[in-house]
């Protein structure tokens, strides 16, 4: 898109760039603080001693490397499954000519508003035989009703003429979906893929609930144990206090870094799909 390079536009640019820059700065500094802390033993803003001990400690354990592998595996495979099933359902729901569409939409909406809770869900996961398998981390949370409904909205934004043109050519529905709809929906696929990936990457509770074998636990279990637990109850000698392992501040921070950076760096690679209007423009033009 091109704007005239008028003075007004330049001032507007200046304001926009500065505002965004300031906000970006405010979000970066604390992360840097976490990063710096992971290299030092103290809570100082600028440490006197720099050390790699925390990272050395983390990577020295088999458990860490293994659970990182588990996380990557379930995130990749799970995102694929989630994205496939969600886009298929959303695409179906985006077609206003499908009888029963409203009922399905209501059902999906209903699951956003109400949920059965932990114990009933556990029974279902057990009944389908997923307990103690990595599938338990991918299938029970495979689809989000929220994303289904929003994604449906994206499909509805695709001009009908495109589909109709293909239908007149006699193309199979599957071909239309794969060749026309999906390529046009890359921004949505990128966005929802990212949402699912982050959700899969961040889950830890279902791992503890559904999987006994600690060898199959993802990295977040470790993170939760180290970062969250240590902030739990304190000085409560009748409860569990003495059982808590002590971690230095640096280990806590290093774990935060190691457990977030892999998923964090996914985003920049997806960003090219958000480039404004490129896709529709090219198809239409």
């Amino acid at each position, binding site marked *: *898109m091109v704007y005239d390079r008028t003075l007004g536009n330049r001032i507007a640019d200046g304001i926009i760039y500065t505002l965004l820059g300031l906000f970006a700065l405010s979000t970066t500094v604390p992360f840097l603080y976490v990063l710096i802390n992971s290299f030092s033993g103290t809570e100082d803003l600028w440490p006197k001693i720099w050390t790699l001990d925390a990272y050395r400690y983390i990577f020295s354990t088999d458990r860490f490397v293994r659970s990182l592998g588990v996380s990557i595996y379930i995130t990749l495979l799970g995102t694929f499954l989630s994205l496939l099933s969600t886009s298929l*359902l959303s695409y179906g729901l985006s077609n206003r000519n*499908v009888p029963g569409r409203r009922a399905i939409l209501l059902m999906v909406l209903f699951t956003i508003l109400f949920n059965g809770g932990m114990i009933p869900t556990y029974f*279902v996961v057990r009944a389908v035989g997923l307990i103690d398998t990595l599938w338990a981390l991918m299938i029970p949370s495979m689809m989000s009703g929220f994303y289904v409904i929003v994604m449906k909205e994206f499909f509805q934004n695709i001009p009908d003429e495109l589909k109709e043109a293909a239908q007149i050519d006699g193309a199979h529905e599957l071909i239309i979906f794969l060749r026309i709809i999906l390529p046009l929906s890359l921004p949505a696929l990128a966005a929802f893929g990212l949402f699912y990936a982050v959700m899969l990457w961040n889950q830890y509770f279902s791992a503890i609930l559904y999987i006994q074998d600690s060898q199959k636990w993802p990295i977040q279990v470790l993170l939760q144990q180290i970062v969250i637990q240590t902030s739990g109850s304190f000085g409560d000698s009748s409860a569990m206090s003495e059982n808590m392992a002590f971690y230095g501040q640096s280990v806590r921070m290093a774990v935060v870094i190691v457990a977030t950076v892999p998923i964090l760096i996914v985003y920049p690679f997806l960003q090219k799909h958000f480039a404004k209007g490129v896709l529709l423009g090219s198809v239409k033009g």
Partner: protein
Amino acid sequence: MSVAAKTEKVQELSGLNRTSLLKRMWKVRWFYIFMAPGILYFLIFKIWPMWGVLMAFQNYQPVKGMWGSDWVGFRHFDRFFSTPDFWNLFRNTFLIALYDLIVFFPTTIILALLLNEVRHQVYKRLVQTLVYVPHFLSWVVVVGITYILLGSEGVLNKLGGLIGLERINFLFNPDWFRPLIILQLIWKDAGWGTIIFLAALAGVNVQLYEAARIDGASRLRQVWHITLPGIRNVIVILLILRLGNFLDLGFEQIFLMLNPLNREVGEVFDTYVYRVGILEGQFSYSAAVGLFKSTVGLVLVFIANRIAKALGEEGIY
């Protein structure tokens, strides 16, 4: 009424008898096949466990199971509504949810629009990535950072002290609680929230901008007449869905920010039920509070959907 809705209506009116229904279904059979895995998923993993909702009406004990536990009717709801703090909890939850809706939600849209206006691609991607980073810090870390900045001996108070300002009690003063919650929320999740809008913005037809430019439309006018209408349906849907979970607030965040001095404004349904129900393993009570929140959400979604339709939007269903 939009063109799409009109065609829908026409089609529906035309298919009144059963044979034509079957015919219509046969015509879109592939769509049923597309949807089958998804529908199956929702039936198995979301609808099947739905019996858990009934726990709210009994004294559920895991050991006795669903059919063995005693049915107590509305006892848990009675207890919940007669909690001395109920109205206080309701007010606190409502206000924070409202601020979330009228401050946080628009902020994400504005941030997305601002990002959309940046033409320097490297700068845009850099900012986009950096503002998205805090989403990945857990609330424990974010609240920790807040304390370092705003504590009695925090960075801000130290700086203020240098220029002779009086110490501000950000963490204990109830007046600061809601602003802090919303600020944290914006800081942590606004960048994350832009993603969906940026994806929607990618679908806006560029030719419209070119036409507008030739017409001499100003930048603001282009945003108002092209960009926003282009993502309007996504905004509406997100808004309605947000209302469905209106009373669900970021539990962890509020729980970590609570202290005895701000509890009167800070305690919300989620933190209350965590302390009273979940920590103590009282499943039925937690389920009752959850059911109450969901019902409120249901009503709000219903109303919002009606309003959206009245305004010519398609709504959710």
